[in-house]
């Protein structure tokens, strides 16, 4: 058979499909104003505002304000992308039939997941560049444990992403939007992400077992004290496993 539409079917190599999916999702996320606000603008405001506030109040901290705050702000950035942005984006993908549409394309489901992971990594790198740049401009002087930082970011992303997908897979898009934002606000305020768990008093005892507190503590240990916080990392790993099991059992593609 010849002609314009003569059949010549076939799937692109998986790596090319995953790359296409990851870059597409990244582009869409960066184009969305609300998502950008969550990913970059709010963490920058927290960092700059927090440093200014500590200076003004004249709190006596064991570390310089920018050194004390930056690890938590990076944790906040991971949480906003891996949990809130991912949940909202996936919720609306289900609603608009994007996941259904891709379900009949050559892109397999694990390819779709890998694409989402790729998009998360790309956005997190962009966040690191922007937030790290702002922090350095404010005089940030980290003494990192690179292994501890990497482990915290990877396990934190896995924990929050699996929980974000769980929410997006069971609720309607609007409910996902509302819940993902609410949880983000509650965890930012009371979840020991930016402010160390020790500052919360009794509440801090609970917060270190939350993914937000565990990620915040692991980042502070790694970037302030060049230490690997094994307890916090185990807590994140447990949340990641729980979230993955829940998602695998409940996620509906349509």
């Amino acid at each position, binding site marked *: *058979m*010849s*002609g*314009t*539409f*003569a*059949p*010549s*079917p*076939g*799937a*692109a190599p998986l790596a*090319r*499909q995953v790359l*296409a*999916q990851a870059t*597409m999702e990244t*582009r*869409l996320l960066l*184009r*969305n104003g609300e998502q950008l606000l969550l990913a970059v603008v709010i963490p920058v405001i927290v960092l700059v505002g927090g440093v200014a506030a500590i200076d003004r109040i004249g709190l006596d901290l064991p570390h310089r304000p920018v050194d004390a705050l930056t690890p938590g702000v990076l944790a906040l950035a991971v949480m906003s992308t891996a949990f809130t942005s991912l949940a909202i984006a996936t919720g*609306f*993908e289900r609603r*608009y*039939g*994007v996941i*259904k*549409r891709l*379900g*009949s*394309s*050559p*892109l*397999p489901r694990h390819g779709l997941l890998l694409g989402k992971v790729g998009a998360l990594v790309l956005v997190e790198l962009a966040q690191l560049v922007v937030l790290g740049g702002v922090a350095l401009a404010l005089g940030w002087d980290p003494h990192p444990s690179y292994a501890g930082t990497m482990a915290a970011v990877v396990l934190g992303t896995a924990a929050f992403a699996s929980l974000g997908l769980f929410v997006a897979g069971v609720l309607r898009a609007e409910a996902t939007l509302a819940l993902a934002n609410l949880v983000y606000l509650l965890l930012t305020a009371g979840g020991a992400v930016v402010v160390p768990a020790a500052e919360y008093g009794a509440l801090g005892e609970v917060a270190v077992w939350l993914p937000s507190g565990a990620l915040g503590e692991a980042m502070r240990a790694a970037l302030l004290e060049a230490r690997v916080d094994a307890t916090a990392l185990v807590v994140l790993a447990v949340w990641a496993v729980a979230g993955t099991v829940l998602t695998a059992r409940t996620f509906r593609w*349509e």
Partner: protein
Amino acid sequence: MPAASSPAVVVDGLVMRYGDKVAVDGLSLEVARGSVTAVLGPNGAGKTTTLETCEGYRKPQSGSVRVLGLDPQRDRRDLLPRIGVMLQSGGAWSGVRAREMLDHVARLHAHPLDTGMLSDRLGLDDCGSTPYRRLSGGQQQRLGLAMALVGRPELLFVDEPTAGMDPAARRTTWELLEEIRADGVTVVLTTHHLDEAERLADTVHIIDRGRLIASGTPAELTRGGRSATIRLVVTRPFPDGAPESLRIALGEGTEVRQLDAVSMLISGPADSTTLSTVSRWCEEHDVLPESLSLGQRTLEDVFLELTGRELEP
């Protein structure tokens, strides 16, 4: 079994239920390779459910489905690159630009069509940079068809392809589907538009309430039916009592309805006797026909006879 001659789709005794509502009720049908097959039926007849089972979205609750010789569930990964699927609606991010979406789907395939050419053929040129949510219904449909075609599939499933399109876009789409068929692609389409089925389909499967009630070419389905329609228009008004006298002349099984002073509609057996009886009656009653036309039985009539219901509102 030689691949070239085996059917593209075999549905055998398919049963699908939602709760206690039966959507598909023991449906069996085949689709020949290289043909355009229309699955025709009213809303809720089970068309989309059947299609989605062929596309691997749903698992048959009873019976079986084979597409290109493969099981759409078990052999999903082998099958999907070979088929193109046009969903009834949606299927794109709300903020994605039309051309960007098409390019994305193209990148998932090994030998995609040129997306510029495809956009041009489907009249998507002038809305290529428009976000999906701002496209008109017809533009979204055309983008949906483009996404189904871009991977150069062997078999194309299109669900209500021209719903929401204006008449010009419908014609363009029909011409495109005819070209696709000529290039060797098998097409399965669902529709509740009879003219679409009549124009495009080699084979029509009429389904109602989840069951197959008739199959054949449009010509086979409309031929040899129970009735034909004759419209008679005369030069001067009919004499009094004309409908009754014509009905008596035609005999049993004929209906005569006077539409106005100079025209009548006659439904009766579709044979030459009916027509000659009408013209003899005109001669005997000194009535001069201005026009005498024999109406073909349409799929609409067939559907009405089979189900006792109108297909289109």
